[in-house]
């Protein structure tokens, strides 16, 4: 029986609480509150209500028939998280944490964001529940995800571009942590992925498990059984753990996490700590596989997709890799773009560049499988935010 994390937040050798002393009481308080509310019927009912009437859940599973036919192998099914309010899975977690923040009496929420989807989700719930919202975003990401920056501002959030380091997601995390250290008594940190200090990896996973729990009901309705494999992209890994976790104890369902291969694993210019055999290290409150140099300095990552452009990965994915319950592969920038194009043309769905990585891997393995096989891809977000990036790659001026 798979049952992680332990009471101290460890997923085997991974996870834990590696935080500065000032934040330890805040993290401890969050754990206590969450452990209290996670089984509270009123909390659960409010969360379910918000997911249904505000987010629009359950999200459908769609059989991508033309795409499947084109590749001539396994049938490809898409879990349509892109149809959620705000356009990605991130809202599931943001709602859950906002409900906790409300119960803890916090009037100010902060968040880090990479592609901007978590920032938009946080700005959205902050507006929905009447909270002040500050979002930290790497200056490089502010540029490549300009539409999301505007969305956050429309929703009343303050977006602070982070100029330090590589000016991407990890630096936004650093800055959000600095804010939290300074304003710990008034502020709730709505962390966006299933990583960070305990209880975040557990809490974010639990809120995202709605994805896998729905799929487990929907797949038998559609095809009379569970899929042969579940495929999801992995940056920090919240959409992946959300769809994987309910399947961990289900036999014969392969779980495949797809990391950002960037310019290729061999080039060193990627964001794939699991596939690239990164060493274990400590960053942002947890012990995980971490891209670093021989001296323990975190190295700059690269991915076409801002949401995957992160040197670490959630601790539960590290464990699932070690115990071989999930396998992890990498998809390069150009393969992700091809998958992006294919879904647009064959199915009339514009996927996020993050989700395009998962899709690309499905397209790669589908032709090697029989037509009676089923692949479930978590289409974690929509691609509207990526128009500038894709246009630039194609040499088009908008």
């Amino acid at each position, binding site marked *: 029986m798979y049952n992680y994390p332990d009471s101290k937040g460890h997923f085997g050798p991974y996870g834990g609480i*590696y935080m500065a*002393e000032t934040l*330890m009481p805040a993290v401890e308080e969050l754990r206590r509150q969450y452990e209290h509310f996670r089984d509270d019927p009123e909390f659960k009912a409010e969360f379910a209500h918000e997911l249904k009437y505000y987010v629009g859940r359950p999200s459908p599973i769609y059989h991508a028939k033309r795409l499947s036919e084109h590749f001539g192998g396994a049938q490809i099914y898409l879990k349509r998280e892109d149809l959620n309010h705000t356009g990605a899975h991130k809202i599931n977690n943001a709602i859950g944490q906002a409900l906790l923040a409300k119960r803890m009496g916090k009037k100010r929420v902060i968040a880090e964001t990479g592609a901007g989807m978590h920032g938009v989700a946080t700005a959205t719930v902050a507006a929905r529940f009447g909270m002040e919202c500050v979002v930290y975003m790497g200056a490089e990401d502010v540029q490549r995800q300009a539409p999301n920056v505007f969305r956050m501002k429309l929703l009343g959030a303050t977006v602070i571009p982070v100029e330090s380091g590589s000016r991407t997601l990890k630096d936004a995390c650093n800055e959000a942590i600095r804010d939290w250290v300074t*304003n710990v008594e008034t502020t709730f940190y709505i962390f966006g992925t299933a990583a960070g200090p305990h209880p975040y990896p557990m809490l974010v996973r639990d809120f995202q498990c709605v994805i896998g729990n729905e799929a487990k009901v929907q797949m038998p309705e559609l095809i009379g059984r569970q899929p042969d494999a579940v495929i999801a992209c992995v940056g920090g890994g919240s959409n992946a753990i959300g769809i994987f976790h309910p399947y961990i104890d289900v036999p014969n369902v392969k779980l495949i996490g797809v990391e950002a291969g960037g310019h290729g694993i061999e080039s060193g210019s990627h964001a794939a700590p699991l596939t690239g055999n990164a060493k274990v290290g*400590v960053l942002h409150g947890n012990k995980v596989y971490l891209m670093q140099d021989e001296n323990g*300095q*975190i190295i700059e990552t690269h991915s076409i997709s801002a949401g995957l452009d992160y040197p670490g990965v959630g601790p539960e994915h590290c464990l699932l890799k070690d115990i071989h319950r999930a396998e992890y592969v990498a998809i390069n920038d150009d393969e992700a773009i091809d998958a992006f194009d294919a879904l647009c043309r064959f199915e009339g769905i514009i996927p996020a560049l993050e989700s395009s990585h998962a899709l690309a891997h499905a397209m790669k393995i589908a032709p090697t499988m029989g037509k009676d096989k089923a692949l479930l891809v978590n289409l974690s977000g929509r691609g509207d935010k990526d128009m500038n990036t894709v246009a630039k790659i194609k040499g088009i001026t908008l």
Partner: protein
Amino acid sequence: MSRIQAAFEKLKVQQRRALIPFVTAGDPNPQVTVPLMHGLVEAGADVIELGVPFSDPMADGPTIQRASERALKHNVSLRDVLGMVAEFRKTNASTPVVLMGYGNPIEAMGWETFAKSAAAVGVDGVLTVDFPPEESHEAFAHLEAHGLDPIFLLAPTTSDERIAEVAKLARGYVYYVSLKGVTGAGHLDLDAIAEKLPHLRKYISLPIGVGFGIRDAETALAVAKLCDGVVVGSRIVQEVENSTEQDVVANVGKLVKELRQAIDKA
């Protein structure tokens, strides 16, 4: 007796407070660090906190973050920092040196290897900002095995249970972070420190150093009256930043001398 303990006992006899300056190793370049350390001692430092540069210093403000970035431009590694301490020890056998930084560079080297090398070159204490007691037991067993003092932080938010836990694990001295925030931020709340210190002393028998927000002789003196040691970080790093390679040792020395004179009035 450890160097840290000896230093504090000597101060106690003299009825003086410790002055504990912080500089980042390799800032602005690796050649400056050892002369700078000697300069700190000549100007009146009792313990030196030597920052190990890290790419992602989450608990630090912009000043110390920039210091890390300057050092990392020269690829200053933990191994290099140990080399600097070895060099410093060639002519100074008594001033305690505490390495301060984040856990990952040590994780990368391996705690056992690190503890052995650090003890061999004459490091006295180790403060890893992001390793709280909960995650420190195994790592710190290696420090203890090689006679290195684990230095812990306490914050205004720290609960009594945690203070008691730190009291059990800490050696050398305990570092009280006087405000909620990153290094170099905000201004001091002296009343809050005055209220907190007697409470901490109920649990902690080691000397207590106070840092964060000490910017000049005046604040150094005010804080010195309340505790056993005054830690000054960002203000000194700022002086390094504003100096040239030629005058950095003199400029920092002048600042530390002022701080020394101030806290000796306590």
